């Protein structure tokens, strides 16, 4: 019994949670005591968004094993739906802090709906074809948003997709990172916990079964389309929520930013962090988002250095010796090694 509790406390998933708690504890205590540099403060929200994006894309790429190249478009749909509805709600609910969670859910639902519409036909395709279709759909969504023109006179609101959304002007830009951070932390934790839970559930087993062997999965009665669609929609939902958060943390949002390049950026995080590894996605999101900022002082050579570092990380990741090293540094391994040392020391005495 006691052993079980211990096991749970030191399980892979719990350790991931501890890591995230520790990271946020350190950064928020620095932030709230005014000891965090401006540069790092500005990164907190965007890194949190990328964690959510990477972890949710990992559900599609790592757990389901389908390549999706349009994740940014779900973020975009969420961002604009959520932010615009937040503006339109301002008459009814004056406080932006109460509107934000509602906007996040609305944005998530809109992104999920788009995910459903894209996924329903696209998920019948396999492998490269699905990748191509998601890529194209991402661009279509981007262009569709760019071409939206809407005016709501009662709210004195005007949105031109080609220009973008001036969140600052409509009073939904939350400038103080300290005020926005709690929302980011909640979103990150909900995402991580949901993704971890799902991998240890009936739905997760069915999803992984489809990944490992689709034909066998069908032979045991798994409705492949249903589960693929659920994964796709769920990932889109979280990406949409991250988009709303992102929109509230930036004074201006342009649809053109959420293009193919951004989808690839998220995919790179997932691949480097490790397929199906929630913890890997989190760490990779932090490192890869922080890197370009850290390299800012090299100004002109920044992107060059960034790409070189990416290549180095990729080579290291593919190297079995490095994997062994990483494995040896894992906490359960360290604990068991310490225990063994204890034993040998005692035996020596």
């Amino acid at each position, binding site marked *: 019994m006691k052993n079980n509790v211990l096991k749970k406390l030191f399980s892979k998933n719990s350790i991931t949670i501890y890591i995230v708690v520790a990271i946020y504890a350190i950064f928020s205590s620095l932030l709230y005591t005014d000891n965090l540099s401006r540069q790092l403060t500005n990164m907190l929200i965007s890194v949190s968004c990328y964690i959510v994006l990477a972890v949710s894309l990992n559900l599609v790429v790592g757990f389901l094993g389908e390549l999706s190249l349009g994740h940014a478009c779900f973020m975009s749909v969420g961002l604009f739906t959520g932010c615009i509805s937040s503006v339109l709600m301002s008459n009814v609910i004056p406080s932006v802090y109460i509107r934000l969670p509602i906007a996040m859910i609305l944005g998530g639902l809109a992104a999920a709906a788009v995910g459903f519409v894209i996924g329903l036909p696209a998920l019948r395709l396999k492998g490269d074809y699905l990748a191509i279709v998601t890529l194209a759909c991402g661009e279509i969504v981007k262009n569709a948003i760019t071409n939206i023109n809407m005016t709501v006179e009662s709210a004195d609101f005007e949105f031109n997709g080609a220009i973008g959304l001036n969140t600052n002007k409509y009073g939904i830009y939350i400038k103080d990172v300290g005020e926005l951070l709690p929302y980011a932390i909640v979103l990150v934790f909900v995402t991580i916990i*949901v993704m971890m*839970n*799902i991998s*240890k*559930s*009936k*739905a*997760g*087993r*069915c999803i*992984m*079964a489809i*990944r*490992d*062997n689709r*034909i*066998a*999965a*069908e*032979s*045991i*009665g*798994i*409705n*492949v389309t249903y589960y693929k669609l*659920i994964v796709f929609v769920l990932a889109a939902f979280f990406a949409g929520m991250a988009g709303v958060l992102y929109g509230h943390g930036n004074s201006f949002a342009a649809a053109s930013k959420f293009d193919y390049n951004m989808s690839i950026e998220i995919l790179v995080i997932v691949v480097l962090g490790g397929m199906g590894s929630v913890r890997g996605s989190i760490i990779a999101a932090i490192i890869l988002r922080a890197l370009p900022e850290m390299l800012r002082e090299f100004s002109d050579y920044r992107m060059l250095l960034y790409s070189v570092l990416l290549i180095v990380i990729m080579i290291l990741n593919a190297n079995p010796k490095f994997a062994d090293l990483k494995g040896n540094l894992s906490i359960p391994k360290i604990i068991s090694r310490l225990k063994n040392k204890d034993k040998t020391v005692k035996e020596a005495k």
Partner: protein
Amino acid sequence: MENNNSSKLVPYPSNALVTERDLHKPPVLEVNHLGIDFGGLTAVDDFSIIIGRTEIAGLIGPNGAGKTTVFNLLTNVYKPTRGNILLNGYSTSGKTTAQVNRMGIARTFQNIRLFSKMSVIDNVKVGMHMSVKENFLSSLSHGFGYSKAEKIANERALELLDFFSMADLAKAQAGSLPYGAQRRLEIIRALATNPSIVLLDEPAAGMNPSETAELMENIRRIRDTFNIAIMLIEHDMSLVMGICEGICVLNYGKIIAKGSPDEIKKNPTVIEAYLGKKKEAQD
């Protein structure tokens, strides 16, 4: 020559063979004039068979005879060009492979298809997915009856594994198991779906004689414990003749003989088909 039997009450064709103890129960599987063409090639033609509720049936034939294709037709992996299939009296026509499984057919594969990156017990639990009472919300939140459903699933999975003395391997990764254990796990996974008939595609392939003997014992135990029918494809004649009650011989996609092991052994057409095959191999 279509035989459109869509209702449950169909007189058995006069040449149908059902084991005596199953005589007064409706058959689990009834296949009428099943056939499929791949382009110009008729891989299976006029395949009719009846399988009793608790029968162990064998499907044999030389390489390329169309045996695996029959399994793929029965599970709707391939859509039949001709004929129909009644499973527990219901037509499976137009159903997906997954739906056919839920109607009662489970199978294993000639080239093992496990969920190799998942643990052994998860392979079994995923097979039981229809009976695990978890909805999507409880899967996400690990609340709403999740713990209870998982506990029941775990216990049942371990029970099934124990049935084949594999409970101690529950945590191992399925892909890392030795060959024989992988074959056994595939059978367990098929059983986990609660089928009324299991199709085994060359379950003894690659096994040594002692493993084969154990497998034979296990197949009998499955039938006796779960009270289900089993249909197996096998090249190992000692196994087929040892446990099958009805045997169906396929050659070039057509049934050339049906009957009890003794009848099949003596059947001149069967002997010729197998010897003829040998001659070809020598050429």
